[in-house]
């Protein structure tokens, strides 16, 4: 047995060490001396990002994290999340501490409000000069003190041109169209889903009216039988593999998906949609603030920002990076729609605590809604169970007594 364990461990270790070191990344940066500050100090920062949201070296792209490690000597611990709410729960519970997080606009506002993120020292982020001011000073962070924009984009409908009539794609009603029952995917996060439902009903997606939210909730419940699944990044796979025909998602991802499957197209409904900004922030309990700012600065390097944008397909707020993009990407109307479309968009703003709690609650209700039972079902079940349990035991005791009397 002992030999066996040794053997197993040896095999595993062999696997581990047989792997050659794989980081031969060098990139051009604006000011190389800036990055030498922490060289040789063996620091590490933990980065919590969306899935598929950084150029990771697959398919001959730049491995951004490896390049940063090589340049600065700071190790990057990289993990991913799928929704803003998931990120919020992780930060709020305080379990793990991260140095870099990338929430979207409304979540940045919420985190500023709850003091979960801290102001940045822009002296350490000289590359912020490359950023478009429109995205640096925003409604959710008016002074631009807490966040540095990473990407922006719009939400629209991705559909399969083989099955869906282009005519139908100009309205959010498509997602409620019974002809496509079972072919529709939907966001699995409350804010995006409610935004669509609210817009479709002609309300603002930042509505703070309880009544309007309940209307939206009802319409999402009506939609549920038509929905195949509630997903986030699983959407790539399902749309590319033609498992589903219609899905609302982010513009940049639509470009990536259309690359893989040319049958896919993207449309922004006429009712208007959401324009989002995903920003880089540093949590209040970060351990390595300065190193984190160095990382932010690195992400703002035109070369790096362009490589990331190339990989994730979203739109860049970095003007210098924009100039480095391919001509057809710069002209791409999905990533950079013209002003008339952009005028009809709305950005998410911070919702008062009561409203966002209500939204979360209604969302859980939508996902769990199917049949309805009286709320006394479970207590009644418990009582019956306890009664049976006691009855059986009493009967057994009585029997035993009888036996012993015999």
């Amino acid at each position, binding site marked *: *047995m002992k030999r066996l364990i040794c053997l197993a461990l040896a*095999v*595993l270790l062999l696997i581990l060490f047989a792997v050659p070191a794989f980081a031969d990344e060098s990139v051009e940066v604006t000011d190389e001396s800036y990055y030498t500050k922490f060289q040789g100090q063996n620091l590490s920062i933990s980065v919590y990002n969306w899935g598929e949201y950084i150029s990771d070296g697959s398919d001959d792209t730049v491995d951004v994290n*490896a390049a940063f490690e090589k340049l600065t000597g700071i190790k990057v611990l990289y993990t991913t999340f799928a929704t803003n709410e998931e990120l919020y729960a992780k930060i709020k519970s305080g379990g*793990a501490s*991260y140095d870099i997080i990338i929430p979207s606009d409304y979540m940045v506002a919420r985190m500023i409000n709850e003091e979960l993120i801290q102001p940045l020292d822009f002296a350490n982020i000289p590359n912020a000069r490359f950023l478009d001011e429109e995205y640096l000073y925003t409604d959710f962070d008016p002074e631009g003190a807490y966040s540095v924009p990473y990407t922006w984009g719009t939400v629209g409908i991705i559909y399969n041109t083989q099955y869906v009539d282009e005519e139908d794609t100009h309205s959010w009603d498509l997602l409620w169209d019974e002809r496509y029952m079972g072919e529709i995917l939907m966001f699995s996060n409350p804010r995006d889903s409610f935004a669509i439902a609210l817009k479709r009903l002609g309300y603002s997606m930042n509505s703070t009216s309880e009544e309007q939210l309940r209307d939206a909730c009802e319409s999402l419940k009506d939609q549920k039988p038509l929905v195949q699944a509630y997903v986030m*990044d699983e959407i790539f*796979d399902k749309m590319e593999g033609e498992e589903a025909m219609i899905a609302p998602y982010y513009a940049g991802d639509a470009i990536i998906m259309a690359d893989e499957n040319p049958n896919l197209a993207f449309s922004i409904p006429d009712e208007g949609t959401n324009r989002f900004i995903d920003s880089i922030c540093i949590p209040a309990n970060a351990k390595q603030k300065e190193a984190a700012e160095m990382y932010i600065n690195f992400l703002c390097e035109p070369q790096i920002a362009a490589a990331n944008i190339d990989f994730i397909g979203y739109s860049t707020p970095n003007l210098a990076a924009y100039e480095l993009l391919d001509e057809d990407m710069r002209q791409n109307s999905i990533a950079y729609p013209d002003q008339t479309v952009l005028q009809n968009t709305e950005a998410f703003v911070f919702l008062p605590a009561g409203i966002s709690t209500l939204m979360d609650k209604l969302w859980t209700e939508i996902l769990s809604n199917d049949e309805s039972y009286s709320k006394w079902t479970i207590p009644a079940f418990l009582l019956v169970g306890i009664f049976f349990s006691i009855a059986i035991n009493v009967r057994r005791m009585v029997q035993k007594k009888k036996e012993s009397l015999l």
Partner: protein
Amino acid sequence: MKWLSKTYIWVIMLFLYAPIGVLIFFSFNQSKSRSNFTGFTLDWYTRLFHNDLILQSLLNTLIVALVSSVIATVIGTAAAVGLNSMKKWKKSLIMNITYLPIVNPEIVIGVSFMLLFVLAQGLLGRINLGFEFGYGTLILAHVTFNLPYVILNVLPKMRQMDKYVYEAALDLGCPPVKAFFRVVLPEIMPGILSGFLMAFTYSLDDFVISYFVSGASSQTLPITIYSMTRRKVSPEINAISAIIFVVVLLVLLLVNFHGAHKERVSRREGGLA
């Protein structure tokens, strides 16, 4: 009747192994598709071995599993030794506590650990002893759910042991500590080993509890696999499955043949005697 039961077994084996077979088969697929086989390649395996995230989490998993199962084995064995000589009511009280982590749903255990660690973080943070979720919390949690398996494996061996052997050793002037290591320990070693192995494998495989207590720097392999299943599909997942399957198969085969060999040897010896 015989063919009926044979087909029945085959059908169940098909049910159990078809999904795994499919996974492994598509790890050699050239395209990313999960259902169209376009050509043979080993690309996904080389990619897998160049994926730092996966290698790091494999290392994390091994560290956590090894450390936690060693700690659990030491504490659990000591507990089993002590339990064996306890009064009946005390013993059954403790055994009830021991069963708790086994019968409780994993998610409830995970959640309760998260509550405990967050609370401890707050309290200890106040006296400047703050800690993060990471190896520490993972190992503490893993030791806890591993302990019952060690105890349940060692306790029967303790019960079977002839206690007079130990007393005889003492009578012959052996000091208690030495007697324990020389007499008791070898006797219960098989129990300890199988407890350790069980703890180790449970620890390697655990997802739900780790999911609630892992931190930024300590993702274990199951957690990494989980986040991979939530993204764009990559046949790297299939490649991991294939490797894990082969490793497990080898280990089990070795254990089995080892066991069969031992059995044969002992039978032969028995025959000779």
